[in-house]
């Protein structure tokens, strides 16, 4: 079984300035990807149970707050660029020593009426007990190098994950890299993330997110993280229910939520956003360090410059759709593995699961 030497092709051009982009992470990603699938194994057992996609990592949070304030919004069209990032991963199947993982990220941005995208991946990894340590360490090194901030000591805080955590760790690495890259490249841009600004988990190291937010402020970018709002409560009422009475578009600013446990921290001010008619509300986190009026203004700019007809920004929806894997792509990657790595595919993938999730997502509750 031989895998041809794959060389990195140059990153495709896109409209953001590129001088600050550090390519070490994707390069290392690719190298490890190739190395890991150069395995000597011959069978590749597609395990139905494992065959689900993982959404962007969000920490499990149950937040309770004491008060909330409704803020009316007025769309502010000003030709701001709206961009969004999302990453997704899927297990392609099991081998006798581990599993095969596919990861892909997408950046989408809107200029005038057109959407443009850049997709990175899919990268494939064969993660085993034996190589997980090496993969993780090498990637983390590349990752922390780009973050510049973390001390040697910090490197040791997170121990090597167990093999089951590798999917979220690797996905998180690519996501943070994309977020950093986009923030460094863009200027005066609304940047939408899938998730929250909660930090302190292995996937969202505090220093890294802080550094990204800092860069964003310097370059006048606005980071806005969207997620489902189902776990937010105001005096034990579901907040989503409260907002239904107010006329969209509007925000509910949450105040006085109970402290979270260390090392978890909230770097964002938390809102519940009802951006369009219908029952769709979302949790929205915006950098605390930014003055309140600017945060509100950013949401109004988003309303004025992107389509939010379903209560969710189209740019972010597209990023999400573009990175998630369809059943067809799963089959294609399995064929790729079978051909390039000479692995025999043993059982059929669980197509049902992939088909019945929205846009091909498996049902994974991340909240």
């Amino acid at each position, binding site marked *: 079984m031989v895998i041809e030497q794959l060389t990195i092709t140059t990153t495709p051009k896109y409209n953001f300035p590129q001088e600050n982009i550090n390519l070490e992470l994707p390069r290392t990603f*690719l190298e490890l990807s190739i190395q890991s699938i150069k395995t000597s194994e011959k069978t590749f057992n597609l395990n139905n149970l494992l065959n689900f996609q993982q959404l962007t990592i969000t920490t499990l949070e149950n937040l309770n707050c004491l008060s909330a304030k409704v803020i009316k919004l007025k769309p502010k069209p000003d030709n701001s660029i709206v961009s969004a990032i999302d990453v997704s991963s899927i297990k392609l199947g099991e081998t006798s020593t581990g599993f095969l993982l596919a990861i892909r990220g997408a950046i*989408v941005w809107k200029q005038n*009426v057109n959407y443009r995208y850049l997709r990175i991946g899919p990268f494939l990894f064969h993660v085993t007990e034996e190589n997980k340590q090496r993969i993780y360490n090498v990637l983390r090194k590349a990752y922390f190098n780009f973050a510049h901030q973390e001390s040697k000591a910090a490197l040791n805080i997170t121990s090597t994950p167990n093999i089951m955590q590798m999917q979220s760790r690797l996905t998180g690495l690519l996501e943070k890299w994309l977020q950093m890259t986009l923030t460094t490249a863009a200027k005066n841009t609304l940047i939408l993330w899938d998730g929250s600004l909660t930090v302190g988990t292995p996937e969202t190291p505090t220093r890294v997110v802080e550094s990204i937010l800092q860069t964003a402020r310097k370059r006048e970018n606005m980071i806005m993280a969207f997620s489902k709002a189902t776990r937010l409560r105001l005096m034990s009422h579901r907040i989503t229910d409260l907002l239904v009475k107010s006329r969209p578009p509007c925000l509910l600013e949450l105040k006085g939520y109970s402290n979270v446990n260390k090392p978890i921290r909230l770097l964002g001010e938390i809102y519940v956003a009802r951006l369009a008619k219908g029952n769709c509300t979302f949790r929205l986190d915006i950098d605390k360090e930014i003055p309140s009026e600017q945060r509100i203004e950013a949401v109004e700019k988003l309303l004025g410059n992107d389509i939010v007809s379903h209560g969710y920004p189209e740019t972010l929806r597209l990023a999400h759709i573009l990175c998630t894997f*369809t059943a067809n792509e799963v089959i*294609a*990657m399995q064929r790729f593995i079978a051909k390039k790595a000479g692995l025999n595919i043993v059982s059929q993938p669980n197509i049902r699961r992939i088909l019945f999730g929205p846009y091909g997502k498996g049902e994974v509750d991340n909240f």
Partner: protein
Amino acid sequence: MKIYKKEGNVLQILSFPEDNIEKGDYILIEDSKARKALIAQVIDIQFANIPGMLEELLRSCPDGGNIHGEDFDPLEIAPYITYIQDSRLLICKIRASIKNEYLSPSKSWLPSRSHSIVKKLPVSRLLEMIKAKGKLPIVLGETKESSPLIIDASSLDGRLNIITGKKETGKSHLSKLLVLSLVHYGATVVIFDLNGEYAGLGYSSDGARNEYYHRIHVLTPGKNFKLMLGQLDLRVMLNILVHALRLPGTSAREFRHIWKSLKERKELSLRALGETIRNWHCNIHIRDALFSRYYALVNSGLFTDNPSEASDIEQYLFKTREKGGAVVINLRDTSSIDRQIMVEYTLGKLVELLSNWRLKAVFLFAEEAHLYLRETYWDDIVTRMRHFGIFTTFITNQPDSIRSGIYRQADNIFLFNFTNENDLEAVSRAARVDAETVKSIARDLPPHHCLVLGKAVKDFPMVVKVKRLNVKTMGGTRLFFKEKN
């Protein structure tokens, strides 16, 4: 390729673009463990129902805008994705199964999905398997794979054939090819040539005489094809009067007496017939009726009292007995009634010669027969006349002009392109193949390509590009702008 499904005698096979399969192709499904195989024919090609396909299409159309982008795909997985997207489902009809090298029409056996080997079966190989070619090969042309499609002349012998397709697709061309091949093997052929196209069969395209020159006899009614009444049988004459000239029954009875009396006096001639009608004692209406038919005969110019003008079709038919030959009845520029008269005469003559074994058998080629063949002949042709040894090939661009009963009886159908739904419907009544095959393949046939159905191909429908013929083309359509082109 992989078997996906089997429903009845329809197999669905998953295939990829590089398999290069087209409609009409044959597929061999070999199950080596069961030591059996199936032969199936692709009658339709569809997109495979790929999971996630809709999502992928939806990705490319966001709310109210366009999306373009680039992929940094370092492992180059994208081609694998498009490969899957381009996979297709072949809808195949099972035609036969093979066990121990023997073909059988059984279609019930189910091959293994996992270890069966599915591959394309070249038509040349299939032709070998079915032994389509015998001692009297006729090369019809080439298959898609450029191998010759060869049938055997014996598969036309004793058979009823239909050549049909829309205008200008090459029906007459194929008909000529069959005629020359039959003549080549020594057969007697009679052609009702509606457009005068067959007169060139004895010449090559440069106008020089070809090897068949002496075996092609063109008879043009009123010119080199005139009859003396004495050549006609009373029965044939009555058929002409009753069927072509619509003479009522009572008058026909009177005519019978007139004819008999003339015959007894050995005075059968046009002139004597006119005289006798004039002086015959009968009802005035009957006399008028007889007279009007009499003048129709005279005016047709088909009859003569002058022996040197008369021609004897018998004599041409006999010429074909040794080395084969074709008698072309050129019906171009002949009125509808005259056509019917000549056809009545010719068919009557053929039955007469065949029934007393002066001829062995005749291959009859009839172009647009509904224009001259009377109602009662259709059934006759497939029953009684066939029994006597008249083996007919109908050529038409109006398939509904041939009755469905004839389609069911047809042994071979040479089907050219049809796009019209009604036409396809008419043809698909043919018993020799299922309607889906006919409809699905005939719709896509390019000009000069023909789907052969029936005994000639042992009921394995095959598409052939009919070969060129080096014969003079005659009597092209009259055109105003012809010279200017």
